[in-house]
């Protein structure tokens, strides 16, 4: 079993990247100022679209990171929470006329419930077993959404009427959406940061790094993990509702697809797991890159953009295993020494 242990100690080393306190640094302030500028500036509509998506995926990657990075619960089923959130707010709006401003919270709550349930179901599982179980659970949710047509509209999905209005939470301008997504992602960031410095945050680290020691010290690992999963799932659900308000069309095969779950994890992993800034950097790098690759190469040869994208992904994963955040600290560390 020590082969396994070697892996574990290495991952542990990488996950313990230096944590400074939870105060806001100049670096973070600069990033947020930049984001506000991008959201407010009169950029072209298609760049705004990329900005909206970048902010949204950043928020979702941050939400995933609470479970995947901080609690060590590498979930490939987050698309289920995303879908649950999107469906909840949309169904409440279309069926009962409840404003999405209220619906997103319901979506978040129900998604949190799903997250807690999944965490309890998979409480004993680790590593690949946890990954594959979450994947399977999300597939179960997807198939249910596909076939429960009276509730979810089935395979034809649900359309939100594209009528702009504040109570509908549908806007004509992309700036409004960019601001909305920015607020979402800033909120998730604040949640993550406050988690880092909190007592509960330390519980998370302790459970992630050594569950046995943690429970010996009086921390209940199952409870801590369940809470982390619920929080992460709830935030993902809210993100799903916001996505629904932006795209205005819910299609179960996309909304609850494994691809989407991979994407959340991918952004966090490329940026740097278990760091607050990592998922943001990941989304800021990957989202515009994949959108631009598709828009410039998508029309030339079918598949070329994805070939280039995936080749870059392989190289980045192999050469920057601790993500961009890890690479930055390494460079900063070298400078500091010299």
């Amino acid at each position, binding site marked *: 079993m020590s082969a396994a242990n070697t892996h574990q100690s290495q991952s542990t080393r990488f996950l313990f990247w230096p944590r400074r306190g939870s105060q806001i640094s100049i670096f973070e302030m600069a990033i947020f100022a930049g984001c506000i500028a991008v959201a407010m500036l009169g950029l072209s509509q298609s760049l705004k*679209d990329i900005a909206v998506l970048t902010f949204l995926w950043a928020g979702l990657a941050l939400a995933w990171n609470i479970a995947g990075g901080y609690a060590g619960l590498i979930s490939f089923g987050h698309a289920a929470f995303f879908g649950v959130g999107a469906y909840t707010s949309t169904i409440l709006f279309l069926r009962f006329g409840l404003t999405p401003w209220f619906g997103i919270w319901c979506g978040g709550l129900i998604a949190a419930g799903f997250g807690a349930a999944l965490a309890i179901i998979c409480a004993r599982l680790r590593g690949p077993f946890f990954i594959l179980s979450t994947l399977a659970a999300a597939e179960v949710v997807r198939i249910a959404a*596909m076939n429960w047509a009276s509730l979810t509209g089935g395979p*034809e999905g649900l359309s939100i009427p594209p009528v702009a209005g504040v109570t509908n939470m549908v806007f004509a301008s992309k700036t409004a959406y960019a601001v909305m997504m920015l607020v979402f992602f800033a909120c998730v960031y604040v949640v993550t940061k406050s988690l880092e410095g909190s007592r509960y945050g330390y519980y998370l680290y302790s459970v992630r790094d050594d569950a046995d020691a943690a429970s010996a010290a009086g921390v209940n690992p199952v409870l801590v993990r369940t809470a982390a999963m619920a929080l992460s799932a709830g935030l993902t659900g809210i993100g799903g509702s916001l996505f629904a308000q932006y795209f205005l069309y819910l*299609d179960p095969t996309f909304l609850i697809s494994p691809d989407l779950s991979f994407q959340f994890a991918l952004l966090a992993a490329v940026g740097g797991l278990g760091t607050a800034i990592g998922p943001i950097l990941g989304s800021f790098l990957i989202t515009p890159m994949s959108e631009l690759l*598709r828009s410039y190469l998508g*029309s030339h040869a*079918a*598949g070329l953009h994805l070939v280039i994208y995936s080749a870059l992904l392989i190289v980045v994963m192999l050469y920057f295993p601790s993500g961009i955040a890890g690479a930055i600290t390494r460079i900063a560390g070298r400078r500091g020494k010299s």
Partner: protein
Amino acid sequence: MRKWLRLGACLIATSFAFMAEDRSQAQEPIRIGVLLPLTGPFAKNGIENWEAMQIARDMINERGGINGRKIEYVNGDATSPAAAISETERLITKDGVKITTGSFASPLAIAVSQAAERQGVFHWETTGAAEIITRRGFKYTFQVGAPARRYGQVAVDFIIEDLSKRLNKSVNDLRIALLWENRAFGKSVGDGIRAYTGQKNIKLVYDEGYDQFSTDMTPIVQKLKDVKPDILIAISFPNDAILFQRKAKELDFNVAAFIGVSAGYSSPDLRNSIGSMVNGIFVADFPPKVNPDVLNPEIRKVADEFYKRYEAKMKRPPAGHAAAGFSAIWALFTDVLPKAKTFEPDELRDIALKLDLPEGSLVNGSGIKFTNFDWPDDPKDAGQNLRASIGVWQWTPEANEQVFPAKLATHAPAMVPLPDWSKR
């Protein structure tokens, strides 16, 4: 005097400006955004459609374009609904297209039209079928292809008007089974058939959806075998259609007539996949090639050229959806755009709503009349084409022949009842 001079100069200057603008407009191409799935699971049909669209563009440009303006495509890879929305928005906002078209599959059509409507852009949907596309009250979405229920209706009509006689049974004595893939298209068509047979008091002995990514068809075929239908209507995609036919042969499941609907059974390379097993299968779909007599003489020439070019390029005849894609875009080129001056969506919408093309005006035998005519529950002026031709054709040992409705037909239905597997 000076005043007059100044006024005259102004007039001359402005008229020059107008002329200059006119001239530049005459040369500037008309840009159209084409949204099709070029990667991912829908890629096969998306790419075939894209080839057909490109042939249409080349043909119109060789004929001098539209009022002297060439057609230029800007395309996007609408691989999933989310990508379809992003790509549509990109084409509209970055490349400035005012007209979009595409998008082959129903979920993609739903997404693309959503994005186009939101941006106030005219969307000319060529093949999407799910009825929700035109039931959302959109102003600028026009669906040239048939609505999903039409596919089912034609299959049922074919049974009532033709097969029941050939099988010497009254419609009510026939055991009819319905199998549908449970994505947007299959479900829509299945719903349509259920509603239509209900209306005609025909009972379905079997009615189930299945997952098109399923890898084992044994349970489905076995259940059908136990139900013993005379006629099976199946809505499938290519991979599952192949798996189904092979499994039917393996388990010796026989029907007197098999009607496949669209995508899976209409793909021309189905014969490469399952060989002579295709013979005798009926397909309810856009006609890939209709009896040329129904086409008006001018469009017949266009059709001949299209089929020739497509076969030269792809080494096989076009599938129904590719021919439908060509037909729809060609109608846009010849019947909508030449009448436009500003190319603003409101103007295009007015032109489209005024269109009244009899059947046989499009390459695949369709006509065009956008209306909400026979469905009172629909939004007013829903851009649904009610003259899209959907017919039934049959795989024959040599090629395929249109068999229904009678006026599009090139051949009489053969191999009814279908011989058992043991005799094929």
